[in-house]
């Protein structure tokens, strides 16, 4: 599936890289020793994921910002027990999710639920055939996602932002079982693949 090739060039590069674990372990060590620069790099690296976690839980933008600030401050007192990139990501994701639920429970008393992000599919500027193709592909994926259960939508949205090396640990923390040879695709991704037109299995270049 070559969908990626058509899509925006403004998106960060795929979250791959075998030296990520070593880099994050180094940053964690430096951050434990009070390195503000190292902590800043960790914040920059993982906040986009946590933003999606908070928003997928149904928080407003303002509440999501508050939750992220709270979670990062709380991490400071937990740094001593966290030594790997995967453990850090799993801790941040589960803490953000829990804090988001707490905040949502409070704000739901004042505002109706806001879970209509699926209707907000953005249109790229219609200025080229390439963009039109991208828009169609995006719509197709969006339509398939919207047929999944809210829980599956949330899980896929979260794990899509998790760096590959951390995927198995975070997926396990979110309740996606780990297979004997590594991370499994899980029920939600299997369902999504069944919904995508002409399951792309076998059509890889």
């Amino acid at each position: 599936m070559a969908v990626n090739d058509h899509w925006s060039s403004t998106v960060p590069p795929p979250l791959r890289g075998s030296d990520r674990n070593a880099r994050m372990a180094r940053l964690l060590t430096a951050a434990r020793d009070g390195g503000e620069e190292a902590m800043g790099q960790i914040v920059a690296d993982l906040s986009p994921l946590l933003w999606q976690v908070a928003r997928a839980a149904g928080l407003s933008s303002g509440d999501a910002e508050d939750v992220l600030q709270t979670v990062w401050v709380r991490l400071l007192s937990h740094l001593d027990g966290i030594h790997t990139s995967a453990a850090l990501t799993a801790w941040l994701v589960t803490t953000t999710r829990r804090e988001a639920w707490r905040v949502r429970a409070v704000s739901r008393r004042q505002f109706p639920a806001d879970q209509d992000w699926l209707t907000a599919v953005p249109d790229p500027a219609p200025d080229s055939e390439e963009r039109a193709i991208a828009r169609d592909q995006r719509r197709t994926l969006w339509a398939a996602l919207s047929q999944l259960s809210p829980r599956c939508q949330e899980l896929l949205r979260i794990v899509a932002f998790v760096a590959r090396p951390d995927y198995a640990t975070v997926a396990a923390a979110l309740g996606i079982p780990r297979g004997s040879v590594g991370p499994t695709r899980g029920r939600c991704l299997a369902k999504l693949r069944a919904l995508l037109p002409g399951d792309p299995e076998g059509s890889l270049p």
Partner: protein
Amino acid sequence: MNPPDAAGHPAAGGPLDDVDLAILDDIREVFQAADPMPADLPERIRFSLALRDLEVEVARLAADEDQPLLATRGEEQSRTVTFDSDSLTIMIRIDSNTDGTARVDGWLAPAQHRRMEIKTAAGSLTTTADEQGRFSFRRVPRGTAQLVVRPAGEGPGGSGRSVVTPALIL
């Protein structure tokens, strides 16, 4: 290895394959476009974390603030922002100086003598709040800033914990 189900779809228990990874990439890009994190959020978080004094009380934007987001990001010439903490309410008014810096005037309630600090990317400025709780920073560089209210002095007379506000954009 888990075989595909009867309809030929890959099984849930199967290992992640390249198609799965490509789909996850696509999902990420959809949400990156539809609901991106505010670009300045990591900067504001870093700013808050730089203050590692865990003895502080963190003030929040007052609940009755009409437009909390605008209050921290607005671009109007003059604006007022109120922060609440357990022990203190901090009201500030931010005005533009002609030289491009910001002027910050504020009041503490209940009124009390305190040492005041405003942290900016360019460094910290200090002043004091008088017995009426009034304080003023005449020239504050534009950008991210955070207010810190410290005890007025050592000993019993310098009672009260430090209070910090969330980072705001001047």
